[in-house]
């Protein structure tokens, strides 16, 4: 099968840098990048133990998992519901609101980082703050603070709107005739049919949170709230990079994401065979 061969070739090409990461994960420090061979001359497992013990990768993965799980759920509900309404339940001012919300994705994080940090610190009733957000540290150095900017990603609303924009608006007529409320129409009819969309939003939210570095860097300060990328950064000391543990750690933290993706694949395919949202 030609397309299979083409896909296989593309996959191998795309995976090349990743293959070297795996190879480096098994390579002793002094040999790192010494040759272009993929099989290490003196294979070792110490990089993995270093990654897990020195960077406390296990705890960091647990933190990241918690934070990403929350962001996945809130995005799959909040962004999908909003995108659905923008596409199928228009209201006065909807278009203006839609463009305003989505356009915030075009402002570099450098600009919003500090105001967001101030807001996290002044979050009322959190971390010792009173109702006016004064007195304590708010959400700073908490997992709640880490997840704060990802609860709804604006581009996910855009994506959901695009997806529902070609959906068949008559699909719900029958249900509405039967007296189903709008929430029921959405939850029982459109949401299940939008499974491919939900799967994509889930995986995108997952990667956005799992991979982010700058915000967790700024908002956390103790070991207890470290995320995976912060844990890995420990091996990235300027001028003194520890290549082996870095790669071993990076490979370890990539595996759960691949697992989530593979799991999502099933949702993709079943979403496809269940029927279609389009008319």
């Amino acid at each position: 099968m030609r397309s299979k061969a083409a896909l296989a070739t593309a996959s191998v090409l795309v995976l090349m840098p990743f293959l070297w990461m795996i190879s480096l994960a098994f390579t002793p420090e002094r040999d790192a990048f010494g040759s272009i061979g993929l099989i290490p001359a003196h294979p070792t497992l110490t990089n993995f133990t270093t990654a897990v013990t020195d960077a406390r990768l296990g705890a960091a993965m647990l933190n990241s998992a918690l934070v990403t799980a929350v962001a996945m759920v809130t995005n799959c509900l909040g962004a999908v519901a909003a995108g659905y309404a923008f596409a199928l339940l228009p209201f006065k001012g909807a278009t203006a609101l839609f463009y305003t919300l989505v356009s915030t994705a075009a402002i570099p994080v450098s600009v919003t980082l500090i105001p967001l940090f101030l807001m996290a610190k002044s979050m009322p009733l959190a971390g010792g703050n009173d109702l006016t957000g004064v007195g304590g540290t708010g959400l700073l150095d908490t997992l709640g603070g880490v997840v704060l900017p990802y609860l709804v990603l604006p581009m996910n609303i855009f994506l959901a709107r695009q997806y529902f924009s070609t959906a068949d608006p008559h699909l719900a007529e029958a249900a509405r005739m039967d007296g189903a409320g709008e929430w029921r129409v959405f939850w029982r009819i459109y949401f299940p049919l939008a499974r491919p969309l939900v799967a994509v939003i889930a995986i995108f939210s997952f990667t956005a949170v799992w991979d982010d570095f700058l915000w967790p860097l700024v908002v956390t300060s103790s070991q207890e709230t470290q995320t995976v990328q912060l844990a890995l950064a420990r091996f990235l000391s300027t001028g003194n990079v520890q290549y082996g543990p870095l790669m071993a750690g990076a490979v370890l933290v990539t595996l759960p994401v691949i697992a989530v993706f593979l799991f999502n694949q099933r949702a993709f395919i079943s979403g496809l065979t269940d029927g279609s949202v389009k008319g």
Partner: protein
Amino acid sequence: MATLTEARPRDARAHRAPARGGRSRRWVGVLFVLPAALYLIIFQLVPVLYGLALSFTRYSPLSRSGPQPVGTDNYARLLADPEFGQALMVTGKYVLIVLPITVAIALGLALLAKQSFRGVGLFRSALYVPHIVSLTAVSMVWLWMYSQHGLFNEILALLGRPGQSWLLEEGSALNAASAMRIWKALGANMVLLLAGLQSIPSVLYEAARVDGAGRRAAFRHVTLPGLRPMLTYVIAMDIVFLAQGFAEIFVLTRGGPLGSTTTVNYLIYTEAFQYNRFGSASAMAFVLFAVIIAFAFLAVRGVGRRS
């Protein structure tokens, strides 16, 4: 529980009366949007507007005196700054290199990966791996691949060609950074286009076949129109994110050589966090914002309207 059972008959009544149903449905639309909108207004829009306010001030987070209003000075200075102009050009070039190639390859791969055969999930995952692998770690591998004795030069050597200084030449550095970004962006683009392809009802293909349409005709009359909303999104998303390209530049070239890879967002980062000048960094960000929105708008209109 009580509120739920109460709510249902009210909804039902609303829909039985068609005249009121339309208005009520609109009101429901607001409710659907409300949680996300409220959240985004507070935690996205407010910081953005704060940044907008800062762009008319001089402000270092280290200072104790807070921002000093300077009117439109920051913007005036930018317009006269050749470095900012160059950065805008570099950013535009970067988007124009990365975007078409990424979308074209991603579309090709999505068409291939759309078919269902055993193990296709593995291929999809493999193609998605670059998007999820830690950038900081994998950038080390790319740095090495581009280095004097890296993979690319070794391949050239096998072909009997002289090695290149990929990241060190004015002419090749941006292309080298673009290659890494294409690699990184491919998976997300493909997954989106795949979802778009999968949402095209197979009935339409069957109908086209019944009408005697060949594969090319089916692509043009079924696939492309069906894919348009997703394609619009993919292109808009690419413009928004590529125009803010920073991380790959930071790890590969630090903006060099001779400023040939200094993107606007790289300047913004330096201005904000190296020089502590948040006022002018914000001004840069809003100029970039205007450019991004303009191009995304044009692209969305272009893709959306063509039929």
